[in-house]
Each structure stands twice: as C-alpha cells, then as structure tokens.
C-alpha cells in the first residue's frame, strides 16, 4: 500500500522520507531507494497526482541550454571571450556566435567586447563536463549599456519575472526603467538614478519575500507608495 508521508508544500530537508510505495514517482530533487522516496535537497514539496516533486530553495546557478544569462567578460581568448556567470562554470562566447558581421582572423576582439563589459547571452550548449557555449546573436542579446547590476539567488528568478513576465512588466511600468533578468540571478537595470535604486529595492524585497503569499499585491502596494502613482492592472 502506498502512502504519502508529507503534506503538499511542506519544507523538506535532505534525507527526509516523502512517500512509501511504488505508486509515487520522484521528480526534481527527490530520489527513490527501494520503495521509499526521499529528498536530497532543502526544498518545497509538490504532490501532483502520483508525482512527488521537490523544488530546491537554494544553490548556485548550474547552466542549462537555452537559458538567457547575464555575465561579465573576464578574459579574451584566441577566438572568443570568457564570461563569468557567477556559477561554478565559466561560459565561452566564440567569435562565430558574437556578431552577425564577419570577424576576420587576427582582428582586435576588444572592438566588440572589452574585459569588464557586461553582456546578455543565451546558452547554446552545455557539455557533460560543463563547458558552456554562449551566443549574443538574437533579439535583446549583446553588450549591455552602462546601468546598475544587482545579484540575486538564481532560485528566486522565476518570482522576479512573475507569471509570463507580469512582475517585471509591473516594475518597468511603475519606474520607467529598462530591466534585464538573467537566469543566473544577475539583473541589469537602466533608468534615472533614483528609479534604479527603487528597482533594486523592490527586487531585494521580492527575493526576501518570494515565498509568502500575496507577493504581487504587496509589491504593487509598495511601488504605488514609493512612486506615488497608481498602477493599472492588466496588460
């Protein structure tokens, strides 16, 4: 007989027993030993029918294909750039993937990206050994103009973006700032200086309260108070 040992949306710790019996399927950070399911991370459980899923709450960014990330140029190679992603692994941007324009052999690569520049890039491939290939070809990708960079936990990024980008749209509308969020937890903000500070404040607030219910409403209230204008719902 199968039995579930925890409640939906419980916090679990490594080694905690989640379910017994073969009727349940582990997913996310859950694993099975014989007929029991355990968690291997600190996380939030989601029980959806037969699937027992553990969503991790913390950790470093582990690059995955198709993620859009923000990184800093830390080195220039023979045929590309090395990019720090605040992850255990650095990304490599090859000249082939850097620009639509043909780059001649031996050309000065600092004309495209200098050491210390921030770029927005997409992960094209991650090997088993975690070599990360990046590209800056595509809409919205490439060098980021001077702005403010802040860092948050990569596990809070979905909350900062909101459902289909709703949170991000609300902040952009209220503050008139341009905001780019990387999946690796780096956020670039550009606007008037006081508004930039406000955005940074709001994002820190989201990060701290990401899991308390009514987040959108609270953030909206906070933004309205700070900016003094009414935010309309929708679009």
């Amino acid at each position, binding site marked *: 007989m199968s039995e579930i040992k925890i409640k939906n949306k419980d916090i679990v710790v490594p080694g905690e027993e989640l379910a017994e019996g073969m009727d349940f399927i582990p997913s996310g950070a859950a694993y099975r030993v014989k007929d029991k399911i355990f968690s291997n*991370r600190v996380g939030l459980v989601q029980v959806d029918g037969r699937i027992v899923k553990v969503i991790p709450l913390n950790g470093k960014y582990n690059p995955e294909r198709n993620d859009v990330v923000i990184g800093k140029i830390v080195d220039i190679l023979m045929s590309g750039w090395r990019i720090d992603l605040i992850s*255990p692994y650095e990304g490599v941007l090859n000249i082939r993937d850097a620009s639509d324009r043909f780059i001649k052999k031996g050309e000065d690569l600092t004309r495209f990206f200098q050491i210390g520049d921030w770029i927005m890039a997409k992960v094209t491939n991650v090997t088993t050994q*975690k070599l990360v290939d990046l590209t800056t070809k595509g809409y919205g990708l490439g060098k980021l103009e001077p702005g403010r960079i802040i860092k948050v936990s990569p596990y809070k990024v979905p909350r900062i973006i909101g459902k289909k980008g709703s949170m991000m749209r609300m902040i952009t509308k209220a503050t008139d700032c341009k905001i780019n969020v990387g999946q690796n937890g780096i956020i670039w903000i550009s606007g008037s200086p006081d508004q930039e500070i406000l955005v940074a404040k709001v994002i820190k607030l989201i990060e701290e309260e990401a*899991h308390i219910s009514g987040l959108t409403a609270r953030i909206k209230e906070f933004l309205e108070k700070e900016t003094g204008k009414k935010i309309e719902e929708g679009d």
Partner: protein
Amino acid sequence: MSYDKRVDGRGFDELRKMEAKVGVIPRADGSAYFSMGGTSAYAAVYGPRQTYPKFLQDPSKGVLRCHYAMMPFSGAGDRVRPGPNRRAKEISLVTTNALLPAIDLHEFPNAIVDVFISLPETDAGSRCAGICAASLALADAGIPMTELVGAVAVGRVDDKVVVDLCYDEEAYEEGEVADIPVAMLYNKGEISLLQMDGKISKDMLLEALERAKKALTFIHDVQVKALKERFKQVENIE
C-alpha cells in the same frame, strides 16, 4: 573504585545541551552553528566553485574539501597555535570522509565545495560538532545530499559506557578511558567515521555503538529542526 557518577552530573547516556542554527554567516553560500555543551562549531560552505589548485579537480565529479581549525582562544586557557598542524590536518581529512558518502557532487564535475569549520570553544567532541555543523551548512548551500550526517562521541570511562564525553572525562585518571567519535548516515545506518583513543573490550564497544545510534537520532532531530527553522519564512506560503 568504579565510575558511578559523571563529572558533570549527567546520566550515562545523556547528551550535553545541543544547539543548532542555520544561516549564521550571510556572506557564505551556506553556513551553520552547532554546539554540544562547551564545544561549539561554525561551518561555512563556499561553492561549488572553480577548483584551485587545478590539480585537485576531478572531471567525473565535484570535490569536497574540509578545513578544520580551532580558534586561538578555544582551548582550556593555553593559546592554540593557529594554522594547520598534524591534528587539524587529520581531522580535516576524516571530516571530509565522514561527509562524502552523504553528498552527491556528480552534477558538478571539475568544481570544488569548500567547507570551513572553526571552533570558538572546545570541550571535547570538536570533530563531532564540526561534522554536525558542516552537514547543516552543506544543506543550507543547496548541495545535493542523500541525507544529513550526525556525529557524537561515545566511549568508556573506567567500567561505564558513556555518551558524549566532555574533556574532564577524556582526561579521567583513575581508570581506563576510551573515546570513540562516531559519525553516521541515519537512513542508511552506515557509519562514516569511527576512530578510537584508548582501550575498550568488544562487548563495551558494541554497547557504546548501540548508544551512539540512539544519541544520533536525537542529534538528527536537532539538525532537522534547525534547518526547518531557517526556511520557516517559506512555511507560511499560500
């Protein structure tokens, strides 16, 4: 003469006061504090991050590196010379080996996870407190681990089997003493650290290990409680 009353008045299988706290060092990726009586340990985890020196890196899985250090003022009054010495290096090694069976670093090839354990005060059982703290700090850092690791010292003082020895018991002079630090993976029931200082008979050793098991379930509860406390804000969710 037999040892019928413990120097600090505890029962023979009574532990000292245990306290655990997770997330004590904001700058670190994960951190924890664990104390048992007069011994307390801080553990900070950094990583997974790039491996330096490079020769340590392993392309098949991540590497765990523990660093054990007693603070200069942590002893019984004499200054403890800072820096790695023979003892600290050995304890760093056994701590790494005690934690390794529980953590899974296959997701992080070529990377390293650093664990720094510092002890502001010590009254025997420092490697055990260090392991308990390190295990919590690793969980706090989001390192995949099959389960938490707990550790406790058991042993004998004269004719009695005791749990969680304090320094005065280790230094007991009127009879034989054995001090056995044990680290265990609760779910698997596997022992990942077993050392001994002193002499003990086979029967007493088995009895001591049995008591260690019982004491460790209690320590496990303390650890789980501390971890859940840390993520409590998450508990009042929608």
